[in-house]
């Protein structure tokens, strides 16, 4: 075993790339701050049980686990939201609502969902809005995500897809699907297997026309017209309520002029057990997989003894840095600043000169003699 070897999925950042990464982080944190989100720093190591309840078993199992001295299972945090939700229900229970919290924190996964996500340590830029069920809270999330992407110079190259998981849930309940069938339908929609989805639905009381329309709906993404098409096939009350909420959301998106970068994607059913209403994904040209995701998770904090509505999202700092770096977009940093090179036999005088320059916040570099 060579000491020079680095574990799979881990990396260094050095020099201009590290500076760019820091600048991307700062840009996001300043947007969060601008929307009155307070920073929260959560423990890096926590009980595995927290994440199991917070993210679901399947996701939590992707983490790095080890045991505490008393034998209880610990994990390197695979997400931050679980921990924030616990704090909201306990430590911050008495604070006035809504709570607005944000973070830039590393998360660790031993095994990623996609082979393209090779990193096992990545940094999430995230925010959570806890204690507000209104549609305005959902919109605030979308607006903040859009603002961060714009500030990074990506306003022409990002796309945010929105959906409500309640549309699927309503259909599954309406068809009276048992758990394995529900998962099968979810998977067929998630991977856009339109023909197989239609075949699957033949065993339920549906007409061929309905099946065709429904399969088409979940395969396409689009703007408002998707909702109109959906109303023609989806008529159960639970799904219709979700469609109404999505339409209200879409109307505001249109009225603030964001409709070009947003898409409605009824086929986004990837995190059904986690989200309870709005769910969204962030894509950026130049990144082969999504760079962020978010949504409403109204049932999460109940795990920690206090049920309240919540919505949040995360962006992947490392993926964003890669895209921004490739676009040769320059964020302010030390890059352009002149450096004062100081040297001399008299080390006291050199240090004093350096301190003098630093008082004016100038950049210095001391050259040592041989």
């Amino acid at each position: 075993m060579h000491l020079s070897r680095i574990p799979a999925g881990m990396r260094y950042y050095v020099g201009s790339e590290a500076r760019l990464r820091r600048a991307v982080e700062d840009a996001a944190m300043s947007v969060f701050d601008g929307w009155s989100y307070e920073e929260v720093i959560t423990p890096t190591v926590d009980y595995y049980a927290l994440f199991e309840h917070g993210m679901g078993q399947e996701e939590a199992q992707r983490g790095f686990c080890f045991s505490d001295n008393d034998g209880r299972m610990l994990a390197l945090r695979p997400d931050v939201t679980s921990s924030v939700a616990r704090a909201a229900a306990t430590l911050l229970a008495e604070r006035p609502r809504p709570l607005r919290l944000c973070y830039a924190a590393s998360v660790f996964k031993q095994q990623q969902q996609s082979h393209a996500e090779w990193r096992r340590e990545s940094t999430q830029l995230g925010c959570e809005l806890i204690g507000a069920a209104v549609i305005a809270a959902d919109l605030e999330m979308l607006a903040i995500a859009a603002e961060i992407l714009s500030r990074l110079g990506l306003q022409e190259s990002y796309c945010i897809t929105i959906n409500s998981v309640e549309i699927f849930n309503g259909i599954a309940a309406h068809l009276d699907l048992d758990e394995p069938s529900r998962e099968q339908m979810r998977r067929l929609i998630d991977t856009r297997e339109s023909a197989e989805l239609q075949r699957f639905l033949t065993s339920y009381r549906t007409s061929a026309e309905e099946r065709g329309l429904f399969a088409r709906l979940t395969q396409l993404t689009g703007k408002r017209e998707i909702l109109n098409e959906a109303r023609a096939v989806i008529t159960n009350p639970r799904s219709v309520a979700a469609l109404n909420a999505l339409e209200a959301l879409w109307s505001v998106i249109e009225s603030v002029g964001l409709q070009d970068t947003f898409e409605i994607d009824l086929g986004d059913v990837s995190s059904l057990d986690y989200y309870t209403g709005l769910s969204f994904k962030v894509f950026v040209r130049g990144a082969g997989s999504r760079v962020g995701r978010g949504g409403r998770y109204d049932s999460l904090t109940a795990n920690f003894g206090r049920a309240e509505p919540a919505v949040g999202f995360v962006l992947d700092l490392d993926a964003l840095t890669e895209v921004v770096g490739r676009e040769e977009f320059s964020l302010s940093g030390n890059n352009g600043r002149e450096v004062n090179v100081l040297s001399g036999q008299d080390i006291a005088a050199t240090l004093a000169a350096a301190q003098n320059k630093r008082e004016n916040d100038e950049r210095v570099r001391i050259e040592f003699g041989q």
Partner: protein
Amino acid sequence: MITIAIAKGRMQDDALTLLARAGLRISEEALASRRLALVDESGNYRFIFVKPADVPVYVEHGIADCGVVGRDILLESEADLLLPLDLGIARCRIVVAAAEPEVMQRDFGMLRVATKYAKVAGDHFGARGIPVEIIALSGSVELAPALGLADLIVDLVETGRTLKDNGLSIVEVITESTGRLVVNRASYQLKAPAVTTLLNALEATINGATRT
């Protein structure tokens, strides 16, 4: 421009024929060359030709937006991709085959299974609680039982000829496999109009609609 990764080998000719019928034509001259990346006559599509197992890799990383590859490869790769279209080409089956089918009923010793599809084979026997030893090979799997390396094989079968010639017969069919169109999740959103155009053209071709 949309980049499409095509699995080289048995899939390639069927895939190019189907794509040409859907309007994505490559000039004879380009096809005759040995280049591994070609642009179609419309200039809207770039084709890259890679080993079948590499198609999901290129598409999952978003280097190729779409790919044409057999379901057998996808089952084995566990790639996180969209699978919007069954192209119906290169139809075949993944089967369990043996020289002596009664070996399945044997009540002593672990069954040894030679295969290129270690995951598919492991899942198949695992789901039924049959403990097996998987022996991963990269080709000529049909030889393994005759030489005593394995009791069974799990392999892709088109006509069954190779099996028969090597004294093997099918014990059971695990699943069917056909050529699939796969799409990168990000490309599906970011290049939605172009991807949809391609999907519609291919779907119309498969459903036998005439194109002008």
